[in-house]
């Protein structure tokens, strides 16, 4: 009997809930696997998918979003060995799973902490409520491959934003595997879109795109590129999260900053009965 030939996997993009190859047809080698090399058109398609998903995701109840994010943690737990096989340390996978759960819990609590009634000098109820900003472009940190990625995606989507993530160019396998987790955990298609490849190709397109509302530059290590991206982002007044130092401690308590930075505040004045 002949020996079985192993089925090798191509690591493709994750756009609109599907796993397409790059429209450019290009790929590059990482850890002996073929990974799609995204082009600016893939970035454009990803923004379209993310924009289309905003209405449904932002419109879902906070409770529902929390449940779906918790479901992601469940799926991630089940794939622990797969991540370990890709070289992600086991305790990093656990920390990443815990981080999903932590952010999942915030979905229906953040509006209470970050919004509320304002005292005003007049016969009005004055209420502020946080709302998602819309489509967020995210540059994932180079390392840690999984925990870093989860720590930038979860806070953006828990409040109702949708994201286009430029995965770490050197560690994209964990990102595509996370996409497989997301694809099997009730996250609607388009809420998270993941592009693999060179940052210099996709991120400037995302930074300049007029239909992107915010950009998180966490994983940008080149200060010149970061400055250029900020200038591009200024064209339509995107919210910008500046890069974090490469020695950032991702295991530390993340705080609320990453969630609140991607929100808009809606304030309602309502007349009080007399």
């Amino acid at each position: 009997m002949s020996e079985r030939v192993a089925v090798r996997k191509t690591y493709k993009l994750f756009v609109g809930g599907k796993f397409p190859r790059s429209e450019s047809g290009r790929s590059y080698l990482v850890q002996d696997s073929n990974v799609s090399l995204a082009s600016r058109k893939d970035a454009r398609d990803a923004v379209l998918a993310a924009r289309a998903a905003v209405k449904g995701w932002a419109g879902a109840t906070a409770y529902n979003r929390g449940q779906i994010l918790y479901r992601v943690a469940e799926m991630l737990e089940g794939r622990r060995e797969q991540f370990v096989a890709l070289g992600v340390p086991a305790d990093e996978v656990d920390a990443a799973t815990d981080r999903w759960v932590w952010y999942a819990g915030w979905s229906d609590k953040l509006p209470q902490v970050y919004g509320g009634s304002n005292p005003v000098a007049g016969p009005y109820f004055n209420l502020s409520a946080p709302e998602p900003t819309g489509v967020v472009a995210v540059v994932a940190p180079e390392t840690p491959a999984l925990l870093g990625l989860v720590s930038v995606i979860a806070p953006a989507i828990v409040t109702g934003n949708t994201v286009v993530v430029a995965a770490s160019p050197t560690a994209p396998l964990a990102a595509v595997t996370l996409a497989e987790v997301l694809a099997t955990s009730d996250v609607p298609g388009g809420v998270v879109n993941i592009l693999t490849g060179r940052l210099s190709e996709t991120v400037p397109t995302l930074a300049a795109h007029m239909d992107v509302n915010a950009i998180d530059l966490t994983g940008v290590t080149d200060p010149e590129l970061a400055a250029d991206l900020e200038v591009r982002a200024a064209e339509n007044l995107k919210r910008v999260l500046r890069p974090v130092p490469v020695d950032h401690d991702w295991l530390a308590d993340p705080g609320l900053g990453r969630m609140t930075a991607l929100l808009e505040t809606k304030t309602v004045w309502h007349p009080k009965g007399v």
Partner: protein
Amino acid sequence: MTATATSARSDLSELGRSETALRTFLHGLPGVDQVGAEQRAAQLGTRSIKTTAKAQAIDLAIGMVDLTTLEGADTPGKVRALAAKALRPDPADPSCPHVGAVCVYPSMVPHVAEVLRGSAVHLASVATSFPSGQAPLEIKLADTRAAVEAGADEIDMVINRGAFLAGRYSEVYDEIVATKQACRDAHLKVILETGELATYDNVRRASWLAMLAGGDFIKTSTGKVPVAATLPVTLVMLEAVRDFRAATGRQVGVKPAGGIRTTKDAIKYLVMVNETVGPDWLHPDWFRFGASSLLNDLLMQRTKLTTGVYAGPDYFTLD
């Protein structure tokens, strides 16, 4: 040669006189190879149009748009805003061409005419009990006259599909002839409503029927039935206008309408026009897109080409 062509021409003009002659002619048209037409249309849709050619195609397509609103909820304010957009589709860029025409219901024609007066943008009105066409002829003609008197210089009529499908070709023919008379100087576009004609053979017959009866344009759809313009249907119609010009010397325009929403779609149609009937038809006088949301996508793509940055729908008006 000339004698044959002339006699062919007079033969065709005689066709309308008898139901039998019309039926014999229409059913004598060669059948459409369905698989072939669909394959040809799909293959033409794979052409890659880039950079300067794309810029040219986008400007041409903008000039071909019949900016349409046909809603029960149309108001004078809404159609005036639409007409203003037709004149200056991209207020941020004066080099952006104006659209081909504005297309509205007859009751809205006077409001649009006010805005468009003195411009090169045409004013089209649907008529003849759009979209069903199920009304007595007198009412359809009154509808048409009212639209023309109110200032429409293009009339989009619907054919009587019930009569066509029942095989009463003369009735359809006579209605088109009567509507054409009611149009006076206005251009007549004949809507075949291909989504209700069921077969490509019927589309070919209806196209010939509309052209024989004097239509200046043949248009695919009302946009009010689930199946609107498709590439293969438009291909069949383009072949019909090409053959009709070869037979009679008269050039007829084509207008696909409904379901064309993206620049990519529009460019596929332009490629098909060029490959099927040639550059003679690549002009707003001979080819139009009946669309509303298409214009914004064209503008976004145009902005992308001029600024290098992907545009967003937030920066263009909704209607």
